[in-house]
């Protein structure tokens, strides 16, 4: 009798674990934010390379003759007089808006809603801090931690939060890797003037775009692999057929 009871308990624990794993697999939606963050990083290339000169429609210039978006360079991701800051400030809300739409769609499709609000809150919160510090830096402070809190860090923090929410180590570690890149890029942008000049230009400035692009490409590949893994897990999940007894 005791042996039967133990077997039942062991079976129950296995069943609980299986329900949990299947639910996590069905609710997992982290691959798209990974892909979007990677595409946002790849999309920064025209701004870094100078292929994009900023918004069209003529120069709305400040009193010193610089375009209005020039001061957005203070977001801390380099680019000098190029519209890199403008790109990052515009792309981060777009990424989070697309993610929010995706989560809503995913919840409707699966009937399962994850705690995605934490991902949006963490990412947009970091982006908000980045903007406030950038404004403070221009308006009042000659230096502030604005260079650490960058829009790229906002993408990284959001991914780490998403990975923790979905208990997905790939998403968490990808977010951590982007955070390292974000800190390195902001350090390069801040200290590039102390680095040697190669003859073709400043080494620090020259490293900014490749760092962002290589990391972006990596993220796109990881996102695509996460999609395949997630699709396979969903296909492999087997729903139990025997309905448990009605309660006494």
């Amino acid at each position, binding site marked *: 009798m*005791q042996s039967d009871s133990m077997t039942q308990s062991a079976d129950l624990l296995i069943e609980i674990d299986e329900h949990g794993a299947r*639910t*996590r697999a*069905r609710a997992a939606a982290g691959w798209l934010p990974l892909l979007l963050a990677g595409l946002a990083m790849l999309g920064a290339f025209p701004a870094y390379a100078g292929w994009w000169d900023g918004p069209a429609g003529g120069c709305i210039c400040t009193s010193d003759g610089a375009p209005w978006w020039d001061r957005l360079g203070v977001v801390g991701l380099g680019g000098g007089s190029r519209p890199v800051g403008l790109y990052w400030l515009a792309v981060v809300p777009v990424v989070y808006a697309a993610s929010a739409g995706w989560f809503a769609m995913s919840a409707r499709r699966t009937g399962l809603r994850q705690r995605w609000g934490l991902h949006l809150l963490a990412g947009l919160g970091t982006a908000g801090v980045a903007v406030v510090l950038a404004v403070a830096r221009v308006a009042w402070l000659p230096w502030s931690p604005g260079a650490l809190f960058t829009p790229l860090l906002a993408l990284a923090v959001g991914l780490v939060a998403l990975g923790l929410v979905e208990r997905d180590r790939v998403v968490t570690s990808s977010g951590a890797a982007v955070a390292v890149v974000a800190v390195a890029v902001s350090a390069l942008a801040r200290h590039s003037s102390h680095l040697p000049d190669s003859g073709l230009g400043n080494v620090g400035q020259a490293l900014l775009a490749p760092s962002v692009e290589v990391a972006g490409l990596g993220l796109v590949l990881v996102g695509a692999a996460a999609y395949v893994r997630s699709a396979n897990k969903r296909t492999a999940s087997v729903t*139990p057929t025997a309905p*448990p007894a*009605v309660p006494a």
Partner: protein
Amino acid sequence: MTSTLHPVVGLDDVVHQRARLGILAILTEVAEADVAALKAELGLTDGNLGRHLQVLADAGFVTLERTIVGTRAKTRVRATKAGAKAFRNEVKALRALLDRVR
């Protein structure tokens, strides 16, 4: 003192039922789930699932929110803090029970 108690003391009558344990196992993984998703995962009928959910709701372990989406009524279920705690305690008690005889 508690360490000398038999693990079976830790089992909760409301939670210690296969379908209800399954419902809580799903709900502790996500913020909320539709009744249709629970039904599909657990392989229960509407009536059976409804009865289990009512038992859990009466015990304060889940909340039920009925909404109208388009022309269809939808019920969203989420585990309360007490429900998540009861689930964790139940799993702990089951593991302790197994450890005792191994």
